[in-house]
């Protein structure tokens, strides 16, 4: 059941987020985030470890309140919406999920119907059942629906999480590294699901580490990083998570963002670019850690 998603826009304007991670160590600070996500669009969020990608995701998913700026859906501040109303429109797929030992795929996915149900009711309506079945089918889990989650492979578990999000019938789905810890095949499976959701006019924001996968599915790539760190970089050890604020260094189409100088500056690596004419792809291969590199060009506004 494709969501009717005309005219919905998820927008972040001048957003700042602060997130104290466990053990009071590094405080992630991101500032001046501006982005828009439209129906049927895929936004890939890229950036080094500790640059605040997950923090941004938590902000968009209404789990972390912005310290500055606003995130709005269709012009309405997401923090002024009721939590149920939000969950009907935006779903969040965590990187991994601890589930009770013997929970089945179906039991998990049916919980995705929660925002559409009464607060006391556990009963599934016919429409609920149809939505759950469709979500399972779209994620290729129909046959596995009675399986226990802890008997699934990593890829199947990830698909179950996506199916739960689909059961919410959202306009937008936010994914926190859906391909983490998956091998090639499972990564491609997830990518195939994302492509299908895109066709159904669901807007998707996802953290992806693989530049090549991003280039293939994303309409927009947001590159998050901290340039001040790179300027005058003395020590590679410094590139661990730092308290200086990150921001979106570049946002645009893959062609606009995945440029050698930008990537080199943000990730501190040397990359090789390989042209795959057969599949009409530019491939990015990290070669080595860059030596002192100064990024001087101003980031695009």
């Amino acid at each position, binding site marked *: 059941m494709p969501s009717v998603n005309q005219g919905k826009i998820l927008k972040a304007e001048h957003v700042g987020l602060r997130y104290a991670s466990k053990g*009071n160590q590094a405080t992630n600070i991101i500032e001046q985030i501006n982005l828009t996500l439209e129906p049927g669009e895929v936004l890939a969020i890229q950036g080094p470890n500790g640059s605040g990608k997950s923090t941004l995701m938590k902000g968009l998913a209404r789990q972390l309140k912005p310290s500055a700026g606003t995130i709005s859906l269709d012009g309405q501040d997401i923090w002024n919406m009721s939590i149920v109303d939000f969950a009907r429109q935006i779903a969040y797929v965590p990187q991994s999920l601890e589930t009770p030992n013997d929970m089945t795929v179906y039991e998990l996915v049916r919980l995705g119907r929660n925002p559409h149900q009464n607060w006391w009711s556990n009963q599934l309506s016919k429409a609920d059942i149809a939505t759950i079945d469709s979500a399972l089918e779209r994620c290729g889990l129909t046959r596995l629906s009675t399986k226990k989650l802890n008997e699934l492979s990593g890829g199947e578990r990830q698909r179950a999480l996506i199916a739960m999000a689909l059961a919410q019938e959202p306009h937008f789905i936010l994914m926190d590294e859906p391909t983490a810890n998956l091998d090639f095949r499972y990564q491609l499976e997830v990518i195939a699901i994302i492509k299908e959701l895109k066709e159904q006019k669901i807007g998707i924001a996802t953290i992806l580490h693989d530049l090549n996968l991003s280039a293939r599915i994303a309409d927009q790539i947001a590159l998050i990083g901290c340039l001040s760190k790179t300027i005058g970089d003395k020590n590679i050890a410094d590139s661990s998570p730092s308290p200086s604020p990150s921001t979106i260094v570049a946002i645009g189409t893959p062609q606009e963002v995945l440029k050698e100088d930008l990537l080199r500056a943000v990730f501190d690596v040397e990359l090789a670019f390989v042209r795959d004419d057969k599949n009409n792809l530019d491939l990015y291969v990290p070669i080595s850690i860059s030596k002192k590199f100064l990024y001087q060009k101003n980031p695009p506004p």
Partner: protein
Amino acid sequence: MFVKFIALILFTLLIMLVNLCLGDLSVAPIEAIKAVFGYGSSEIHDVIVGIRLPRLLTAFIVGLALATSGYLLQAISRNDLADPYLTGVSSGAAVGVACAMLCKLDFQTIPFFAFIGGITASFLVASIARGNGRYGVSVAKLLLAGIALSSVAGALITLAMSTFGTQLMAQGLYLWILGGISGRNWQELLPTTGYVAVGFIVALAAAKQLNLLTLGEETASSLGLNVGRSQLIILSAAVLLASSAVALSGMVGFVGLVAPHLSRRLFGRGARLQLVCSGLTGAILVLFSDLLARTLSPGQELPLGTLMALIGGPFFIYLLSYSLDQVHSH
């Protein structure tokens, strides 16, 4: 599933009947049932309706309350080792009861004071266990905070009693803390049953919220659940159940740990089912322990709390050493 559930109910009724019949004066089942309904000799009637029936119902209520409280605490902390006794909720409630006793308050108000003590303890423990982590609680911290709080609570009670209380009062309190359900009369039983019923109904109504919370706070909130409010309501229900039990029977430990585990193994998951099944399992546990407490050494009675600790302690150690890693799968 349905068969198992019927079996559970039948078994509960059976053990209730056994509890009614056995004791210093053994009564035939048919005589006992007759007495409950007002027939038979007055001598048997006095024993059955005057002593054993209130005691049996007390055991039932205490078991049900502790087990469901344990289940609720386990669900909201996502930690299978949580239990009102181990997390210090019972100790907090005991301080409340001791205060009420010291002030010579009416018995009707005791569950209320127990609740105040219990909820204070639960907030303290929860805030310690939560620490810096934004989501979820640490298992080790939860249990250690519970232990620490229990020690402080025990010391407070002793201190208060030795300073303000009479010797008689101290003796009574000591016996009560050991955990026992002897000598409860209808006047004590009925109001507490009301508190337990309220807690149980609130918990049943929050079944859906409980199911969502098993996925963790982050995911539950992204599914549209108001996590903070749900946790507060469920915690209050859990504390109300546990403190009512404490008011009635003192410190009976491990029921809230053992019963939900057994019930999960036997009956599967799902919050509403678990609430009912672990409640009944807990009732059976306490009824059985009380039966042992009354019959093991004739003429003398073992404290119920002591017996439960004998059963529950090893079970806790088993859980700690064996299944802690398997509590949740990634």
